[in-house]
């Protein structure tokens, strides 16, 4: 299991002080020009890192330098930079999203590193996530899983009054916990089998815990699992690496729940859906 810092360990409780000196880092970054090109690590010395920078800002500054030097900047995905869109993600020293627990790459800050550190940066690696360039991968395979059944079939305009169906608060809260998944793919990147089972289980749990999700509960689960396998994700063998890196702390208990639903689906409909 990768070791993670907790938020408390690594923050100060004093007011903001401004006397931080720049850190110097050595970065080993995976560079790959295109999907079929060979990739390799390239080493960069970064002289000018402030502890208040985010990890991506640290790379931004490096990229500005690279551009002015006439090199191509490092390609990496990002958008919201608030830890919610799920666009960012890289392996940082072998850990998906880096050393900070429950934190997406864009929310990781440089105060968690020390002057003189060497940091290795790689893309997500999984059969179902082919590399596009440098740290950018394709993750459409996750969308395919949702398209295979990760929804409730209700047409616009056909909805009953919202408060007609009460949902016990514990169920609603549990459903919300699963629904927090940002579809980043870190769970896949961390899994030795490159399985997307935590992601899939989160979707199944989110919908399957609500009364609205009951009519399609078993079919949804079976269809999503079939698509998961078809997309080239590996099988889940309960290693637990996924839970450790998940920026939204999705619990591996959802995988157990998913497995129970799969068994029940087979019992109730042995011929399959």
């Amino acid at each position, binding site marked *: 299991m990768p070791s993670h810092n907790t938020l408390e360990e690594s923050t100060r409780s*004093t007011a903001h002080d401004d006397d931080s000196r720049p850190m110097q880092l050595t970065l080993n970054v995976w560079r790959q020009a295109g999907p079929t090109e060979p990739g390799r690590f390239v080493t960069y010395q970064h002289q000018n890192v402030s502890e208040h920078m*985010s990890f991506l800002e640290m790379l931004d500054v490096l990229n500005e330098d690279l551009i002015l030097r006439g090199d191509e900047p490092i390609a990496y995905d990002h958008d919201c930079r608030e830890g919610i869109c799920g666009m960012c993600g890289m392996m940082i020293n072998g850990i998906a999203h880096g050393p900070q627990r429950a934190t997406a790459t864009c929310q990781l800050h440089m105060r968690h590193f020390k002057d003189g550190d060497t940091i290795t940066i790689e893309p997500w690696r999984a059969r179902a996530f082919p590399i596009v*360039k440098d740290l950018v991968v394709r993750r459409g395979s996750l969308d395919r899983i949702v398209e295979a059944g990760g929804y409730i079939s*209700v047409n*616009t305009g056909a909805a009953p009054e919202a408060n007609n169906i009460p949902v016990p608060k514990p169920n609603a809260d549990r459903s919300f916990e699963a629904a927090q998944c940002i579809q980043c793919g870190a769970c896949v990147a961390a899994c030795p089998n490159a399985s997307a089972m935590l992601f899939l289980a989160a979707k199944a749990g989110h919908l399957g815990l609500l009364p609205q999700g009951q009519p399609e509960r078993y079919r949804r689960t079976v269809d999503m699992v079939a698509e998961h396998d078809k997309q080239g994700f590996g099988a889940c063998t309960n290693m637990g690496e996924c839970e450790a890196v998940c920026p939204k702390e999705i619990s591996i208990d959802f995988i157990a729940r998913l497995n129970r639903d799969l068994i029940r689906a087979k019992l109730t409909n042995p011929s399959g859906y």
Partner: protein
Amino acid sequence: MAIDSTTVAPPRIAPTMPRTRPFTEAPPDTLDSKIPEGPIDRKWELRQFEYKLVNPANKRRFKIIVVGSGLAGGAAAAALAELGFNVDCFCYQDSPRRAHSIAAQGGINAAKNYRNDGDSVFRLFYDTVKGGDFRAREANVYRLAELSTNIIDQCVAQGVPFAREYGGLLDTRSFGGAQVSRTFYARGQTGQQLLVGVYQSMCRQIGHGRIRMNPRTEMLDVVVADGRARGIVTRDMLTGEIRSHVGDVVVMATGGYSNVFYLSTNAKGCNVTATWRAHKRGAFFGNPCYTQIHPTCIPVSGDYQSKLTLMSESLRNDGRVWVPKTRGDKRSPAEIPESERDYFLERRYPSYGNLAPRDIASRAAKAVCDEELGVGPGGLGVYLDFSDAMRRLGVASIRERYGNLFDMYQRITGENPYEVPMRIYPAVHYTMGGLWVDYNLESTIPGLFVGGEANFSDHGANRLGASALMQGLADGYFVLPASVTDYLGRTKLDAVDENHPAFMDVEREAEHRVRRLLEIDGRRTVDSFHRELGKLMWDYCGMARNRAGLEHALSQIPAIREEFWRNVKVPGSAGDLNQSAEQANRVADYLEFAELMVTDALHREESCGGHFREESQSEDGEALRDDERFAYVAAWQYNGDGVPILHKEPLTFDNVHLATRSYK
């Protein structure tokens, strides 16, 4: 290049510039807003009855292009596909579920009146018109309030896990200056939960083959063939391929343009490209100067800052905003006694206090920082202090309410807000301006419909909290499906394909432009230009604006633009993933758009909502509207190399009495 948009005070500009009008004015009555006849509460019903329908068997013969997969675009794509149309949907992220709507935290308004606290459709309508400082169209706002209740029903049926009470029914809270509790929420993640609902509906239609989703595909232009919007030209962000997409109608829901300021709370990829290119092809731009500054954001920490982070304004329900009473007070906040603190919102706005609307709270914070009373690096921050609330309610209940926000703050600043007060500062957050649309959400280009933040919309000069999500979904789920169907039902469309000269021309232009950007090979990065523009806009067209500053900005923008096209360095090639080229293309458009935004701000010689003109304020610093001269929507027409042309859509208020906003 290290230009930091918010830590350096702008130099004062002496008002010596010549007073020329950088625009011309069209004769009156050029705009038809197509507001239905009838009383306000029947207009939408009557309009829906007037709408033409399309025979179910014919629907699959039409192709609808939807640009954007946020709440507005995604909902429209799903709803139109459910009706049986073929939809081609586009977004620049790698999955439609990542559209910037995902980042909304606080909540979504709806006039359900579940609390029995006196809410109603009319009250939501009234609050929104008043909150927008009487610069929105009454009929649109009423429809929005009416549809708000259907949205909640729809979302719950899709499985959106809204917060609930112990009895199992939906919970609500009061938000952003509303005196009723009408905001539905999903912890601090309302946007993500609503967007996942939209995304799932889209996925269902993608699975059924009725939506063809094109992620990582950036719209570069809209194509107008024979007087109608008939498609778009895009760049495949993975391969660089530029190509045309032909359809029968185009819906754009491409979000807002806050990133014209470089630093904002918007995602890095948010752009004005789609709307600006449409503008250049004939769509009028409405009220570009109306931008919203959000009071509770994390202050800038250094010149590498790449974006700003919002913290939900729900924090103001329990946090108290203050600064030290004396300049240069360097003591830590805990050492400053009560008597030496200025709770300036409570002092200036006794009845609303810390819950004063966004524009007012933001300006008040700027005012104390201008007096050099601000806290933190550069003095650009004020305290948001929870110690009273923690004493009163206990730390546990504060953790329950705001735990995730406190964690986020701690993650970014390295400070523990349970022990030291947060520091906050206003940041650009939302743009009320956008493409002008009529009541049917159709722009001035026939067949080009615009929804969500991309249109000039229903929020007037200031948007109330929790109203953008509502508007995006109202447009997407309910208005666009009806009005787009009507357009297809009543319009005779000629056969057009990719070989139509209009498509060929636009494609060529787009290719040429990308090539040119790559060929300049100058000495400055794209970001350095973006920062320079952003700083200029923030200093002179930001929270407070005046004639001299705006004229200064207007004189500077062309110079930055000129240097950009001469001296920008865009590495790499056009034929693969090239994030510098993507960004260069967006910044080039911001450099043009900024000029229109400043022109609009300059022409509007009044203060209203998010637009504050220093010349137009009362003795105690409150905004002064000028209803005599400015009760209109400013819709700008592109005029090539000439100055833009101003069209005015007069606003009339028959149901809400035009009055001065007061939150004292």
